[in-house]
């Protein structure tokens, strides 16, 4: 949950805005429509900057502060853009007892960013996640949709090298 506002300027395209408005039109008459709209808005833009929240507020009639409240409540919604490669280290219990904390710390050190942050070139973002359910492969991390399991700290360099 990143509650600080991003300093990176908003760069939404008219196509994205049209997609967003279509999504809102599709859901807005349904009960409990806000969650699906926000989820799809994040799919479209990759994150939920205030500009996007304002469009949703105007179209649905929900006050902006309610939308902001929901966005900042859930871990999945992000106010900041993510890197091209999103690294998530599982800190679920099964991974933690097998040393995923060390792997996470190593990545913080290697990438020079804090958890939840993004490298200045926009390439990597790093976050901790709770159990992706691949406990049999613990400890695990994911880079976008690729899953790496049975890790040791020594594997980190090779994994990062694949994306550099």
């Amino acid at each position, binding site marked *: 949950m990143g509650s600080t506002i991003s300093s990176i300027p908003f760069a939404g395209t008219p196509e994205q805005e049209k997609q967003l408005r279509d999504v809102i039109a599709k859901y807005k008459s349904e*009960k*409990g429509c806000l*969650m699906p709209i926000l989820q799809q808005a994040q799919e479209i833009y990759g994150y939920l900057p205030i500009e996007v929240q304002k469009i949703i507020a105007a179209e649905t009639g929900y006050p902006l502060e309610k939308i902001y409240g929901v966005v900042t409540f859930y871990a999945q919604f992000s106010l900041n853009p993510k890197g091209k490669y999103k690294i998530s280290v599982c800190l679920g219990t099964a991974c933690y007892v097998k040393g995923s904390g060390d792997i996470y710390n190593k990545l913080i050190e290697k990438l020079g960013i804090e958890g939840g942050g993004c490298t200045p070139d926009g390439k990597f973002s790093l976050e901790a996640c*709770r*159990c992706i*359910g691949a406990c049999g492969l613990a400890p695990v991390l994911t880079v976008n949709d690729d899953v790496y399991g049975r890790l040791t700290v020594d594997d980190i360099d090779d994994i990062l090298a694949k994306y550099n």
Partner: protein
Amino acid sequence: MYRSHVLVCGGTGCTSSGSAKIREKLQEEIDKNGLHDEVQVVKTGCFGLCALGPVMIVYPEGSFYSMVKEEDIPEIVEEHLLKGRIVTRLLYKETVTDNGIKSLNETNFYKKQHRVALRNCGVINPENIDEYIGTDGYQALGKVLTEMTPEQVIQTILDSGLRGRGGGGFPTGMKWKLARNIVPDADQKYVCCNADEGDPGAFMDRSVLEGDPHVVLEAMAIAGYAIGANQGYIYVRAEYPIAIKRLEIAIKQAREYGLLGKNIFDTGFDFDIELRLGAGAFVCGEETALMTSIEGNRGEPRPRPPFPAEKGLYGKPTILNNVETYANVPRIILNGAEWFASMGTEKSKGTKVFALGGKINNTGLVEVPMGTTLREVVEEIGGGIPNGKKFKAAQTGGPSGGCIPSQHFDIPIDYDNLIAIGSMMGSGGLIVMDEDNCMVDIAKFFLEFTVDESCGKCTPCRVGTKRLLEILDKITKGNGTLEDIDKMEELCYYIKANSLCGLGQTAPNPVLSTLKFFRDEYIAHVVDKKCPAGVCKHLLSFEIDPTKCKGCTACARVCPGGAIEGTVKNPHVINKDKCLKCGACIEKCKFGAIVKK
């Protein structure tokens, strides 16, 4: 008719270790060898033995191949599928005996298991409704709609003794009965499914959704009939993409077959189900928070009463059950309440699925009758602790639960026994810890989790857990006092007594249970300033044993702080003032000369 079927696990564990590519390669090789009319490849749900993934099983022989790699596929196809010669080197070791191959069900991992909720997982193709129907699927719904009154359905569930598998253990039939009767003239009721499996290290609900999604749909329709609801919602974690996809397919197929929708089985009963995705908030596993979240709000809990059976989703009577609970329902209807009640202990009937994880050989999913002992689960089914290490504790119940030490190894696992020793069943995560895990660190780990996930609505939880974490942090850094331990214990009871919802009421459990069983470790941290397991870095010191050091300089070269001094071929020394305690030197030393104390 196919002469051979190859079942390839398509659960998350195996998919993560590359089973999708294996399946593609398998199909490619089968086509290449002209076997596509003879051999069928089936993508199934989880087999349970995730540690050995990717796994596949070839029928009719029942050969169980584990840790299969893409390059093994041509051999399996050419040798086994074409020539009928089983590739022994790839078989799961346990199935290979001097007298040939034994069935998977006779291996230690499977023989004590009894699969009710996981009955179809790893057996059928979850994306094909016909396979579910082929294993008696939707028969229970048919029976309920055509032969039973709603009251009879509720009575059957009550008689079976089924209790909620999500953690609390509330009798399911009681919940249904309340929802049926408490508001007699309700114009709308809802059936919800909690598939927001939030306990880290628990993945049984995910496996049911991925391996047998129709069982949940069928059970929800049965529940709808029983309480008088015609709309269902499944609240599923967005982190489970495979489960979501299979649920979407299952709902679509069930609608096409007329098993969801209007006038099911021509009985005039309408029932439909929609999915709602969670967005990563642990507190949404709490029933009132979950419903608030479905309504499109911040997922904060509200005080009960009124209970959801009276005022739930959108203010209407609602029942909420967890995935595994639902997975038991169709079997109870078909086999009868007595059958279900014949399994388990006096107050905990049936079976329970556990996700075995952590320091255990057979990580994976197991389903055992209630009352099975922890020893049987860890040593026999789980295959014990890797690397010859000693068992220290098993953690159940996730962040709400506690750690069970070895002196309670023979306790029969059921709801009440676990609560009696300060833990709880929870949703079924069972994480094994060995002598290298520090119990203070584990308590701190769980508190970090609850501090992060506390929704902030009530003060005891929001502020109390934060203070607990601060004290734990102080202790792990070597600054704790005996008074801190007492203060912490007192605070735990305040938080338990005064928090609004289950999250806060159970958040101190990891601290209390480790204090109860591993107080000596806390004392070692505050009095001796030592971490016996060697985990808490601030309390460690690194030393080089001069009799073992060969002066190879490997440690000095890898040390990020430049803390290791010495000349080639002479014993080195660690400068404690500069040492960052990162442990890099230990990893590099080939002679075992560096010890942490």
